[in-house]
C-alpha cells in the first residue's frame, strides 16, 4: 500500500520539477533575499523600501486598483442586470461576446487605442469639443485619471463575465415570493437580490483589484515612467535604470506579491461562499 502510494506521487514529478524550477525557486529566492542583509535574516530591506518614490508607487497602484475594481464591478453589475432583465436573448449574446473579446484586449494596443481616441487630438476628444465639451486641459490620457479610464476598458467586461452567471442564477421563484409579499422592484433588489449576490460581488472586486495591481504593459505604454506604479518600478529596477540595488528590488517585489496574494486569497474565500449560496 505504501509502495503504491509513493509510486502515485512519482507521476507528479515532471510537473513539480517544472513548477519548482520556474515558479517556486525564483519567487522563493526573492523572498529569501528580501529578508536578508547579506549576513543573516533581517527586515532592513523593507525599512529601506519606505522611501518617498516607492511609497508613492504603492499608493498609486493601490488607488488605481481600488478605483478601477470599484467602478468596474459597479458598472459590470449594472450591465449584467440590464442584460438579465432584457427581454431579448440577442442582447445577452452580443454583450457576452463583446465582453469575452474586450476583457482580453489590453496592454500596448489598448493603451495606444486610447491615445488615438482620447489624446489631446483624439477622435472622441474632438467630437466632444464639437458639442462644446472640452476635455483638455482638465483631463489628460497620460495621467492617473487616464489610466483609470483605460483600465476600465478591460475591467468592466471582466466584471460582466464574472457577475453574469450569478445574476442569471437568481431564481425566478425568489422574485415571485418577494413580489407576493408586497416587495416592489427596488425592495426586491435591496433586500433579496443584492444580499444574495454579495459573495459574487466581493469576489469579483478582489479579482479586478489583483488584475489591475499586476498590470504593467498598459501603464508603461500610456504613461511611461511619469506615473509611479509598483510594476513600473520593478521593471525599471530590472533594467537597472534606477539603481543597482537588487535586495531593494526584491523587497518591493515581495511587498507587491503580498498585496496581490491577499487579494486572490480573499477572492477564493468569497468564491467558495458564492458556491455555497447558490446550492
Amino acid at each position: 500500500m505504501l509502495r503504491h502510494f509513493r509510486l502515485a506521487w512519482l507521476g507528479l514529478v515532471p510537473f513539480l520539477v517544472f513548477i519548482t524550477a520556474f515558479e517556486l525557486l525564483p519567487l522563493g529566492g526573492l523572498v529569501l533575499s528580501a529578508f536578508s542583509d547579506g549576513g543573516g535574516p533581517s527586515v532592513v530591506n523593507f525599512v529601506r523600501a519606505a522611501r518617498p518614490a516607492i511609497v508613492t508607487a504603492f499608493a498609486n497602484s493601490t488607488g488605481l486598483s481600488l478605483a478601477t475594481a470599484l467602478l468596474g464591478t459597479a458598472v459590470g453589475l449594472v450591465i449584467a442586470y440590464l442584460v438579465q432583465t432584457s427581454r431579448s436573448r440577442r442582447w445577452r449574446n452580443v454583450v457576452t461576446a463583446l465582453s469575452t473579446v474586450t476583457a482580453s484586449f489590453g496592454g500596448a494596443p489598448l493603451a495606444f487605442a486610447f491615445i488615438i481616441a482620447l489624446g489631446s487630438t483624439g477622435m472622441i476628444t474632438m467630437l466632444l469639443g464639437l458639442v462644446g465639451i472640452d476635455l483638455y486641459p482638465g483631463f489628460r490620457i497620460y495621467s492617473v485619471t487616464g489610466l483609470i479610464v483605460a483600465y476600465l476598458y478591460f475591467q468592466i467586461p471582466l466584471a460582466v463575465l464574472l457577475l453574469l452567471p450569478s445574476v442569471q442564477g437568481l431564481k425566478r421563484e425568489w422574485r415571485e415570493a418577494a413580489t407576493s409579499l408586497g416587495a416592489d422592484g427596488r425592495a426586491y433588489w435591496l433586500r433579496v437580490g443584492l444580499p444574495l449576490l454579495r459573495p459574487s460581488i466581493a469576489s469579483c472586486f478582489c479579482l479586478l483589484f489583483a488584475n489591475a495591481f499586476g498590470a504593467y504593459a498598459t501603464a508603461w505604454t500610456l504613461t511611461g515612467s511619469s506615473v509611479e506604479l509598483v510594476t513600473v518600478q520593478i521593471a525599471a529596477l530590472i533594467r537597472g535604470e534606477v539603481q543597482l540595488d537588487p535586495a531593494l528590488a526584491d523587497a518591493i517585489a515581495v511587498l507587491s506579491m503580498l498585496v496581490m496574494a491577499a487579494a486572490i486569497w480573499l477572492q477564493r474565500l468569497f468564491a467558495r461562499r458564492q458556491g455555497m449560496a447558490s446550492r
Partner: protein
Amino acid sequence: MTGESSLSGKSGALLRIVTMGLFLAFMVLPVVATALFSVSVRWDRTIFPEGVTLDWWAKVLSERGFQRSVTNSLSFSIATALASLALVAPTAFWVHTRLPRAKPLLEVLTILPFGFPAVVLALGLIRLYSPLPLPVVNTPFMLVSSYVVITLPFMYRAVMNSLEALDTTALSNAARSLGANDWQIFRRVILPNIRGGMLSGSLLVFSAAFSEFALANALVGTRLKTLPIYLVEFTRFDARQASALALISFTAVWLVSMALLSSPARRTSTPGLSAPV
C-alpha cells in the same frame, strides 16, 4: 420580467437604452478610432480625416521587423500552448484518477500565478538564473517556460473541469477490462474525451502568450522582438503604423476569442483574465 417598477416605464426604457449605448460606445469607439486612424492621411487637425490611404498598412506589412516579430510571437505562443498541454493534461489526469489527495496542492500551485505580477516572475527568474555560467535567462526556452507558468490557471482549470465532467472511473475500468494499460487509457480513452477542455485551454494560453509584454521585454526584449514589443517601439515614433499594428493585435485576440466562444467547452473555461494588462 415581472413588474420591474424602476425600469418598466418609458423613462426606464430610455435609461436602459442610454446606459447600454454608453457601454457599447465605450467598448467599441477606441477600436474604431484606431482602425480609422490607420487608414487616414492625417487626422489631428480636423474633425474628419484628411483623406483615406492604405500607405501605412503597406508600410507596416512590408517591414522585415514586423514579419520577424509576428513569427516570433506566433512561435512563442504555439510553443507555450503545446508545452502547457504536455505538462498539464497528463498531470491533471494522474491527479484526478490516482492521487485525488494532491488536488488541493495543485489547486494552490496553479492559482498562484494570479497572485503575483508578471514582472515579479521576470525579476525572480533573472535573479535566480543569470548568475549561472550558461546563458539561459535570455533564451526562448526561458520565455516559454515563464509563459507556461503564468498561463497555468487557464490550462489547469479548463482541463480539470472537463475531466471532472467525465466518469473517468467507469471509462478506465471499461478500458482496462479490454486489456488497455494506463498509457493506452489516457491516450485512447481519456484524451479524446477532454479535447474540448484542452482546446479552450490552449486558446486561452495562446491568446495570453501572444499579447504578453512584461516578461518578453525583461527576458528577450533586446534580441528577439515580439509583436507587442515592436508595437510599443512604434508608438514612440510613428503613430500611424502603430495604429495598424494595434489593429492587427486586436484582430488576433478577436479571432481567438471567437474560436473560444464557439468551442464546445466554452462553459467550462475560466472567463477573462487572459489580458496582457
